[in-house]
């Protein structure tokens, strides 16, 4: 037996060691967090630096004459005429007026390539909105072609990329720049249009709407089903081999690769039930299957965290089990359930693999207006653009990623806010 004095010495000696290990441990934690933050920072700076260019796009200023003869339209109220009219031709005319000394077929073609080949339809819309312009001349800013856009932006940044342009085209752009007839504008197309083969006309509106419709359906289906399953399993089901079996399977489903859910959706919903392909209905169904396990698991955890004393209090008052669940357990578990649901939704929003299997990877220009309209979703749109050869799609891809990330940030912030807001202490 040692004397108390010896003990004190020993304690003091060990104290230094313990403090040292604690300091070390803290530093491990800090370093781990720094690594995580650095990764996020690199990701965000990379995406933002690549993508911020996409929010501005190049426009050219031209003197356009809305010539009835050239377009082939005399009655703006006739939709057939509008559809058959040659709208691009007045742009070609305007370009020729701008650069009168261009001659030869090749040069003329290259001159015409300065403007987007969808810019004529913008003029059509302009004319329909203001029919008095027919036959008149107007100075308008028209959308430039994506190669021009890419070159002009890179030229402004001091690293011109002219690989896809001829020397003459570069010269024309320089002239336009000197005359102040080329400029960058806010790219509203990005947010108002659907997908396009032409990068300068492509927008994410279609994908955003597709994601929204798909997610709404996923939420409507998976939240009630998941919560009901979780409540039954936690509160009503007898604890026996069957419930253990179900629990193991639910946990398994949560870890199944999402592409398998896509295959399942393809086999069951499309091949067996003949739900149409590429539509938010089938996407929502597949994503419901995928998010259900997440929602069930988080909801069960939320229900478990409700203190047993509250249940006892309710039962002791003569509440039936249903009343106990409805009046006490559910309100207390709701913040956790909502958090789980939002995390599940965020997961679903970022999911692309299962949707590839059910045809939501199709090239869709129209903006979906309902659950049965063909649609694609944001992550698939990112995949499609990343896969496209046009250089201008690089910044578009990053811009779409930024939009997706901001949706995710909003959702996850809402989850934290909801939890803080609804959390009740007992």
């Amino acid at each position, binding site marked *: 037996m040692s004397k108390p004095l010896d003990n004190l010495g020993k304690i003091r000696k060990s104290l230094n060691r313990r403090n040292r290990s604690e300091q070390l441990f803290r530093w491990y934690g800090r370093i781990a967090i720094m690594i995580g933050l650095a990764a996020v920072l690199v990701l965000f700076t990379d995406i933002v630096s690549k993508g911020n260019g996409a929010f501005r796009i190049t426009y050219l200023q031209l003197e356009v004459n809305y010539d009835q003869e050239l377009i082939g339209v005399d009655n703006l109220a006739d939709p057939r005429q509008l559809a058959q009219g040659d709208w691009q031709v007045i742009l070609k005319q305007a370009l020729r007026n701008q650069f009168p000394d261009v001659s030869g077929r090749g040069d003329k073609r290259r001159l015409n390539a300065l403007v987007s080949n969808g810019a004529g339809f913008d003029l059509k819309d302009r004319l329909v909105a203001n029919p008095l312009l027919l036959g008149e001349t107007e100075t308008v800013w028209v959308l430039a072609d994506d190669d021009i856009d890419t070159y002009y932006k890179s030229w402004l940044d001091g690293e011109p990329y002219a690989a896809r342009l001829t020397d003459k085209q570069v010269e024309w752009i320089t002239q336009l720049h000197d005359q102040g007839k080329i400029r960058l504008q806010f790219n509203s197309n990005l947010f108002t249009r659907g997908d396009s083969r032409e990068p300068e006309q492509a927008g994410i509106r279609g994908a955003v709407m597709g994601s929204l419709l798909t997610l709404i359906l996923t939420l409507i289906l998976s939240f009630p089903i998941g919560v009901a399953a979780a409540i039954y399993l936690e509160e009503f089901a007898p604890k026996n081999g069957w419930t253990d079996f179900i629990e193991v399977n639910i946990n398994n489903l949560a870890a199944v690769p999402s592409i398998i859910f896509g295959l399942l959706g393809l086999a069951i919903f499309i091949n067996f039930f003949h739900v149409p392909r590429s539509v938010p209905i089938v996407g929502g169904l597949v994503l419901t299957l995928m998010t259900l396990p997440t929602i069930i698991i988080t909801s069960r955890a939320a229900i478990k965290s409700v203190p047993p004393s509250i249940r006892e209090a309710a*039962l*002791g008052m003569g509440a039936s089990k249903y009343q106990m669940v409805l009046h006490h357990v559910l309100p207390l578990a709701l913040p956790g359930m909502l958090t789980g649901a939002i995390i599940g939704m965020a997961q679903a929003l970022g999911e692309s693999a299962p949707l590839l299997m059910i045809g939501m990877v199709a090239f869709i220009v129209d903006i979906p207006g309902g659950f049965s309209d063909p649609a694609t979703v944001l992550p698939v749109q990112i995949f499609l653009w990343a896969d496209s050869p046009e250089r201008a799609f690089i910044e578009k891809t990053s811009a779409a990623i930024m939009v997706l990330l901001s949706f995710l940030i909003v959702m996850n912030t809402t989850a934290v806010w909801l939890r803080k807001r609804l959390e009740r*202490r*007992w």
Partner: protein
Amino acid sequence: MNEANLATPAAAANAEKVEAKIEVKLDAKQNLEVADDQVTVGQCFTDAPKMTMRNVNVFYDDKQAIHNVSIDIAQNEVIAMIGPSGCGKSTFLRSLNRMNDTVESCRVEGEICMDGEDLYAPKLDVVELRARVGMVFQKPNPFPKSIYDNVAYGPKIHGLADTRVDLDEIVENSLRRASLWDEVKERLHQSGTGLSGGQQQRLCIARAIAVSPEVILMDEPCSALDPIATAKIEELIEELSENFTIAIVTHSMQQAARVSHRTAYFHLGRLIEVNPTEQVFTMPEHELTEAYITGRFG
């Protein structure tokens, strides 16, 4: 091996009284085993019982927690159940309003009746039973709702109040009877969880009496409270006994002595002795009771 050890004091209990007492003292820090055929001594039964329990056995899976307990609880009496930790007094109390139903492994045998009606009959609805037999728990457990809603919860789910005015009246009366009204009348719509521990427990009592139960079960209602709050609750129990039958489990012998009319001593799942409280604390009939109240174990 355990059984061999335990057999010795069991045999000793049947031997001469002096020897038995020595045995008890020797084993004071360990298990004081009681014989399987232990019969409860004292006045277990009353002439006009509110509740009657006969040969009650409670099991958790294969483990028997309560052995052959028979006892009556009289109308408007306060009966205290005391005993060392793990003696089964809480289990027994919880079988009186079938709170043990929530424990899946728990099984109750024997007969538990209130006013002659079998509480374990298949056709009996536990919801009705728990409205008639209220319960106050060890840890104050108000709902995380307003004080008003806490008290109004029972009347609401049982449909006791027809109008808002009726409900207000029930809430006020219950809070008054729980001696809480004056402290909370200005803040009825603040959260019940914001009250102090003692106030929370009185809120739980108010909540229990709001549905006018016939019997109130209290499971160590003061064990989480300070002495002042405890004194208030004890005072309250005395007042409540005018209208209610109360069964209280307590760890504190002083509390049993202060509030109860009769005291039941439980030991290792067996009911050892039931007698008027005064007698239990002055001249206990059984040596185990004596050993416990004189503080030799427990």
